[in-house]
């Protein structure tokens, strides 16, 4: 299937990536090239095959649900572009 410009813009909104007008058309072509090439997976018979989610050949370990680390607000906020007190600051969200 081939993506149109409206779909490319919708994906960009979902991905939260701002798009310039000329960029949308170039992305549309690139994405269609990649998706067209990926279509070859439709040749594979996957009937009855269980999906593989990861490469770890083992069961994930369980651990106690307890706090093991933390309590460093200064370290956590050290890279914040903007902070107010011990909070990350963002543009006003609610009027």
């Amino acid at each position, binding site marked *: 299937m081939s*993506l149109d410009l409206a779909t490319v813009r919708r*994906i960009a909104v979902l991905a939260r990536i701002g798009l310039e007008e000329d960029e949308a058309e170039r992305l549309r072509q690139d994405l269609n090239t990649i998706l067209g090439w990926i279509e070859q997976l439709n040749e*594979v018979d996957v009937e009855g095959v269980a999906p593989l989610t*990861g490469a770890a050949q083992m069961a994930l370990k369980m651990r106690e649900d307890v706090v093991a680390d933390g309590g460093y607000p200064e370290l956590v906020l050290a*890279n*914040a572009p903007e902070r107010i007190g011990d909070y990350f600051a963002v*543009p*006003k969200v609610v009027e």
Partner: protein
Amino acid sequence: MSLTDLTIAEARARLRAGEITARALTEAHLAAIGALNARLNAFITVTEEQALAQADAADAALARGEHGALTGIPLAIKDLFCTTGVRTTAGSAILSPFVPPYESTVTANLLREGAVFLGKTNLDEFAMGSSNMTSAYGPVENPWKRRQDDSAVLVPGGSSGGSAAAVAARLAMGATGTDTGGSIRQPASFCGIVGMKPTYGRCSRWGVVAFASSLDHPGPFARTVEDAAILLGAMAGHDPKDSTSADVPVPDFAAACGRSVKGLRIGIPREYRADGMPGEIEALWQQGVAWLRDAGAEVVEVSLPHTKYGLPTYYIVAPAEASSNLARYDGVRFGHRAEGGEDLRALYQRTRAEGFGAEVRRRVMIGTYVLSAGYYDAYYLRAQKVRALILRDFTEAFAKVDALLAPTAPSAAFAQGENADDPVKMYLNDVFTVPANLAGVPGISVPAGLDANGLPLGLQVIGKPFDEETVFAVGAALERAAGVEALPALRAT
């Protein structure tokens, strides 16, 4: 012999014998970086003061008769590993202001063993690329030159291009890398050095900037198989902070390099004989078969029937995981924030448009699309099922053989700007490396010969899960038989 020409094994023996100092060894490498990095652009950040302080601490420990596996050995760290107090960019503008307040488990393990860190190496942005051309900090120059045309600037491969170039040019004795679809093995092949991608779970991913979590494998670069084994031994080990870290013992990888390959069964996957593969790569592969036969291994043909579907599967799974992992870069908690976002959504969109380069935007878009409502089953779920078939291919092959032998990459290093017109053309570089990431099995690239232009070519050994020892043994046998002595044109002297 110059200090920068020593192997890690040689240097650590001399350090322990008191014949050289860590200070002198580190200064020699810092001088090499000073002389060549402006041209190669292998390092984004050089941590000279820290390196000298670590070297002095190593000398003090050695003077007390104490040492770890790597005491005093100068290494380069891919700028994807978080390092306390040292900027970590992932090759992206979006992380340009990021200074981690914590240390990745792999680099913490190396420091525990006494290593000296020279700095942080260049890479494709978020490790997405096969040429190091997508870095926001500029491309890396491969230290090798074509014999007939030394004006062409070649790529070092990617994504760990800076690490590979630094080790090849003798700016570092070894380096860390990460391999999500070939990002250690392909640049190792392009730069004429050894690159090892261990089993998934062998090295902790904690503190490594995430690209595709089910495919990301930290691993080492070095100039010999034994050195790569020494580095992996120090990097590996169980880490409770990574839920996929394997709680299995770390064997003596370096000892495995001396094992005989006599009686081992080596599989030649017939589907790796790709159309259009250059004749000299096919010939080198046949030469590798002959070397292993001469060393007493039994070589048999095997089939991995889903090989050709590895790349398209990867280009669904990896972007899907990337679109999820990269959602954290929103300009709020760390990293770059765009100016003038009038509301939160505009802040996100502008920050990510400014902060991500073209290849990263492309992959985040693909990933978002294949995970979106209505397309999830057709793309993502189908890819996960094909991934299961690819793993099954390996499992069935490893019921018959101990390891597989294949080329690492379908070409030698190409020039900057080549393969850039079509994203799929660039992706094809990883055709022989991606299947091992999808299956999580270990693989090593060993320099095995030169092409007609005098550029290095690697052969790849792929092994069973958690059997890196056999991979190292076979890799070391190839290294001994190949006896490659050529050196890159640009190197420390």
